[in-house]
């Protein structure tokens, strides 16, 4: 078994999916507490592929979105994103700031910052849970925000992640407020190949 494994087995991906689920569960709980509303969480979707393949799956759309982005570092390298349809981003901002903005162009820095903060709380909660579960020290950068085509945002994120043909792993989970006409957003967790290997080795020792 000298050959480097390029693909992960279905079981391995499922394990990691479960872990991401734990993280996202914490994010959902945080969101529910913060807004005092019920939150519905989808089953994670997973994608394995090199950067171009992932970009083809997710990023060829010209749909306009609002994204909050973090880089993970420390024991695990990767990225996390929260992606909202623009009207849902507005909705969250209005709930948090008690304003009534109708257009993304009206947003003040304060409004935008509140959305970044929402991302910070949700994704921060999930990173903390992941780190605790895996006994790994996972840190994340301050949030950054962009309004643009989803494809353009994804290519920025992906090309920052790693620059080889190695496979990366991506999980996507949808969070939705139940009683507000399905206002919600997608959480994306991306792990580079080194980190994926590290996570699996931790899991193996944990299980055995």
């Amino acid at each position: 078994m000298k050959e480097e494994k390029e693909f992960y087995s279905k079981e391995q991906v499922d394990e990691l999916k479960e872990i991401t689920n734990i993280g996202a569960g914490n994010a959902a709980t945080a969101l529910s507490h913060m807004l005092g509303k019920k939150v519905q969480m989808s089953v994670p979707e997973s994608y394995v592929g090199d950067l171009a393949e992932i970009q083809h799956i997710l990023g060829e759309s010209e749909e306009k979105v609002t994204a909050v982005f973090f880089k993970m570092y420390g024991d695990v390298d990767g990225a996390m994103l929260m992606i909202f349809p623009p009207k849902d981003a507005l909705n969250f901002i209005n709930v948090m700031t008690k304003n009534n903005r109708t257009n993304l162009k009206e947003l003040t820095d304060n409004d935008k910052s509140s959305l970044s903060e929402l991302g910070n709380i949700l994704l921060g909660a999930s990173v903390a849970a992941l780190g605790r579960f895996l006994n790994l020290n996972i840190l994340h950068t301050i949030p950054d925000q962009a309004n643009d085509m989803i494809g353009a945002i994804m290519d920025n994120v992906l090309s920052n992640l790693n620059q080889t043909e190695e496979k990366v792993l991506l999980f996507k989970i949808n969070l939705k407020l139940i009683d507000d006409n399905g206002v919600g957003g997608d959480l994306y967790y991306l792990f580079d190949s080194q980190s994926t290997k590290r996570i699996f080795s931790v899991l193996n020792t944990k299980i055995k």
Partner: protein
Amino acid sequence: MSEIIEIKTAELYVGHNDQVIKTGSVGSCVVVALYDKEKKIGGLAHAMLPHRKNNIIENKYLARYVDEAIINLLEDLKLAGSNKKNLVAKLVGGASMFRKLTEEKNSIGTQNIKIARYTLERLNIPIEAEDTGGSSGKMVIFDLRTGIVDVSTAL
């Protein structure tokens, strides 16, 4: 009506006069358009990363890396009957959206543009126009009848 060809990330296409090549959501990627005015042949490449960092040679994507994309585009144009002397280039893309995380001067977008300019200079292909850098994603439509590259944003 001209035929519309759509290319994805890491792909390239070379076509002739009554075609239009389209590519969407260009963020830090760089899109290189080469056009031969004499013969009305042109090609578009949508490259993702600056240059190859390992030795794995794969033929799946001809335009994954900027430098290789330009060379492959040039080869295809030559095969289509174009003369290198008549070629002019246009560059689009190389944006950095997340300014807090990477300084613009170190971003992948900026590196992509640098490599594109350098490669074109080495090949003696003049750059006729550029819409590069900044912080917004772009859509590109390249009309091979006129050589006009139409760039739009989502905003």
